[in-house]
């Protein structure tokens, strides 16, 4: 069974989690071009590597960040995102 460390609830089985995709910063919709906005909506950095990702612990409703190698599936770090960064 695969396990993942929830920053609030500790190590839990992966089946309790849901994947939320790569962590990305939203461009300012008022000042960016249509092309930049389309790129934000649709394009992804699909190449493999270490990625900062959103994960969700379903039973406790906790969103957090995991840093994961998408080739080996090894998670190096999980943490809650500081409030100010969430607002970006």
């Amino acid at each position, binding site marked *: 069974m695969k396990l993942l460390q929830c920053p609030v609830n500790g190590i839990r089985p992966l089946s309790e989690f849901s994947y939320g995709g790569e962590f990305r910063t939203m461009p300012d919709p008022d000042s960016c071009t249509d092309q930049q906005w389309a790129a934000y909506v649709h*394009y992804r950095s*699909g*190449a*493999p590597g270490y990625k900062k*990702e959103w994960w969700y612990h379903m039973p406790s409703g906790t969103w957090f960040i995991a840093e994961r190698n*998408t*080739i080996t599936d090894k998670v190096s770090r999980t943490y809650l995102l500081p409030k100010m960064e969430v607002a970006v």
Partner: protein
Amino acid sequence: MPLRLLKYAISREHPAPRFFRDCVEPKKTYDVVIIGGGGHGLAAAYYLAKDYGITNVAVLEKGYIGGGNTGRNTTIIRSNYLTPEGVKFYDASVKIYEGLSEELDLNLFYSNRGHFTLAHTESAMRTMRWRAEVNKHVGVESYVVGPDEISKACPQLDISCSGQAPIIGALYHAPGSVARHDGVAWGYARGADQFGVEIFQNTEVTRIDVKGGKVCGVQTNNGYISTNKVLSAVAGFTPRITQMVDLQTPIVIHPLQACVTEPMKPWLDTILVSGSLHVYVSQSSRGELVMGSSLDPYEMHSTRSSLDFVEGLTSHITDMFPFLSNVKVVRQWAGMADLTPDFAPIMGKTPIEGFYLDAGWGTWGFKATPISGKTMAETIARDMAPDLIKSFRLSRFEDYELTGEKGAASVGH
């Protein structure tokens, strides 16, 4: 007898037939370089030579031909999609497949089975009716059937699904078929080779050179090749190739798994798919049940398979066929599916002159092998994409002109 056979096997007079020349060192330059020796790359090479007389072509494959998703898929061929552009495109592919064994002079074990997409809910029935109407409109034989007709075609199926999720109807698709996947790669490879195309295995592209917005060459672990035209047909490796040329795409990679049971006497003629139970199944010509499910839930660039997958799949397949609980799963594997947000491929030209993309085949690209080869060959030869694939262009994302194929592609096959 065995001794005679052995003598025959080692005799010089009867060398083992090869499907294509053993090319070792690439030339310094080619008119077209194709990255990826899967079905798509090899088919494109074949049609470039056959339809357009372009034979100074190299296919570069980092492993062995057909070793990517082409040799890992569950070989279902169908055209019962949801959007008119999708249905037309896949129908053109089915039509080529029907005559392909003859054309390539190789038995591809193309076997027309009929294909049922089972509905367990009213909302699923709604999608089936919608697909049936779009299919009929385009001239593809699909229609909605009730539980009686399903039982008649497959008496072994427990229509109540062990009481878990009773089947209330299905979309029946007459052309649904299976074929031998690696045969398709070998057949196209041999065909292309006979026209003079050179196929290099163990040859990996590590860099693509672009000057002034134009492709000028590729670096491989087997020497440098200059060329003005490069086709990337690498499925699960697409983001690594597009990164080399700084091209943004929506493609993300998720593993897709499959497995087979031990062989049984033939009992399952048709192909069955259930979106609600996340399974699809057919019986191969060897007697194995070939089974697959939906994608793994998160991005990963790996072909490892998991116990979670077989556990989930077998629990659902035994809802449909309780008697299978005694049958063993003998092999499981995974491929890397290159997914797009609208479940349609990305095909055609790119902002880089001479760089052509055939990607975004996700869980559905085996059935498209012939038509993608043919249309990509046309795109390269004429430097213009044919109408059939215009709606699959990469620029559709910037234009917000996505296709909506999810309703017909959500269970991988």
